[in-house]
């Protein structure tokens, strides 16, 4: 097991605990973040049923996506410092990409859809090299387009692809850097919520910040 995988499987429960502890405690600012970080780090290394949390999170999955981890980081920092790293439209881009990618990937992973088609196989660039360009090029194009349009989620996708190039996860399939079932499920729920909200309350009006920042 690569050392980077161990770090990754520790980082995910740490960030999740940090995220929850911030919301439960209502703490903000540097001191709030520091306190939440200390509590979360202690909980991560506490031996739950004989093993620290990274042991259990690796048992669940060693391949939490880079995008989900970075979204957690953004959320934690936004909560702590009220910096507004992500604006509503950045979050919407994250949920749209997560939902679309989930609908492309997970049905075929469950054996649904065309007989021989498995979208996940395209994530190994050497296996179906010709067809894989749609996934690798598509992810690159999506990141480029978002960055060009001033959407900060584009940088997150960009970093996920750099993570894939670095190869620090257990998986060497690019899908595992871009998407995981948790991020996918949250994205689908958020998209449903946005659609429901628009149907009941009308379109979301862009904030002045949204309309001015490019």
């Amino acid at each position, binding site marked *: *097991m690569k050392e980077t995988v161990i770090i990754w499987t520790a980082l995910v429960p740490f960030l999740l605990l940090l995220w929850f502890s911030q919301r439960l405690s209502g703490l903000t600012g540097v001191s709030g973040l520091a306190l939440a970080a200390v509590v979360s780090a202690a909980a991560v290394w506490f031996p739950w049923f004989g093993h620290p949390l990274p042991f259990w999170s690796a*048992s669940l999955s060693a391949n939490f996506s880079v995008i989900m981890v970075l979204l957690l980081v953004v959320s934690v920092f936004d909560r702590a410092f009220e910096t507004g790293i992500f604006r509503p439209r950045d979050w919407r881009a994250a949920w749209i990409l997560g939902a679309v990618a989930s609908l492309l990937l997970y049905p075929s992973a469950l054996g649904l859809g065309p007989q021989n088609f498995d979208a996940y196989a395209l994530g190994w660039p050497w*296996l*179906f090299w010709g067809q894989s360009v749609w996934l*690798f090029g598509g992810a690159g194009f999506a990141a*480029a387009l978002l960055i060009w349009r001033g959407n900060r989620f584009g940088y997150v996708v960009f970093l996920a692809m750099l993570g894939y190039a670095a190869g620090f996860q257990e998986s060497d399939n690019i899908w595992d850097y871009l998407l*995981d079932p948790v991020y996918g499920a949250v994205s689908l729920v958020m998209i449903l919520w946005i659609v429901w909200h628009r149907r009941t309350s009308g379109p979301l009006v862009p904030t002045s910040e949204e309309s001015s920042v490019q």
Partner: protein
Amino acid sequence: MRDAGIGRALLAVAALLAGLVPWWMAREEGAKSFPGFSVESGPTGVGDSAATGAFFRTAQVNTASTHTKSHSAALAELSDGTLVAAWYAGSGEGAADVAIYLSRRGVDGAWSEPAAVMTRERVQADLRRNVISLGNPLLLPDDSGRLGLLFVSIAAGRWSGSSMNLAWSEDGGLTWGAARKLTMNPLANLSALPRNPPARLVGGGWAVPVYEEFLGKFPETLWLRPRGEGWSSAVSRVEGGVYVLQSALVPLAVDRAVSFFRDFRPARWMSASWSDDAGRTWTKPAATGLPNRDSGLCAIRLSDGAILSAFNDLSPGKRENLRLALSEDEGRTWRTIATLAEEAGSEFSYPNLIRTSDGTIRMVYSARQTQILFAEFNEAWVHEQAEAAR
């Protein structure tokens, strides 16, 4: 403002390149991703029988076993001719005491005392994650003398909570390096299992028939290819849905192969798919004329191109018999030619067939899921049985 626009444009180009560069760098490996199957007709298996004709022998591999469960055996031949069998055994399927056992058969023909080569505790330490049980070993003998061991570890629940691991031995299975997890699917990497022997690939590596049984139940191919000092792995789909699994992969030529499936549709036929592009795509599974009551089967190609299958024929109980069938048209039609085992109320299951370098056909299977039985015979015996069955 203009500088910010240029910076953003440069970052956008960098992001596009971050997607395309890894893809472009894989082009050489991509050109060899389906290199074709290594198919040799080889001898007919009369060499070790004084060239006198047909022979058939059986033995028990785990003679002194006290386990209440011994099942899912696999067989392989090392480069020096040693036979190696592996299976899982313990107090029950999915139990914490289940380990992967291995036995070797030397030139004297005797099977060695089985040794637990992978235990739950050891695999848990190797993988640094929770393991509640082990199962389904498969052996990958390398021309260089290395031996690979594919097996599943269960993280939660039963087989649908399993994932696949690979370990290597440099001394024919006596000692093993650390197991590492293979990434097989995006759903928490759960529910991938091996079952039948791999097919060797041109230029090294294997195509391993594997299957998923989470919500869908379907066959796939695990491609293991040498890459530098290590291995690259990837998985391609054979068929989706929820009706066939546990394929037996039989190469017919460099670019052609047939896969036979355990099929749990009510029709009770073994089904088959064919590939004419080296395993890249497969035809829709079609029922063959061979009856099979949703149970594990195995098949190999003989020196004359005929295909021999070991399977559970229909019987009042699910797996009360184990029979051999022969196909001379690449798996489309079959004739049952012999019964290897049959006993009312008993169970003979999970055959694992290989054809060794001297042409002899060797197999292991489970009896009552407690005994691991071994059988060896040559093609002369197969043809003798086929003639008698006409």
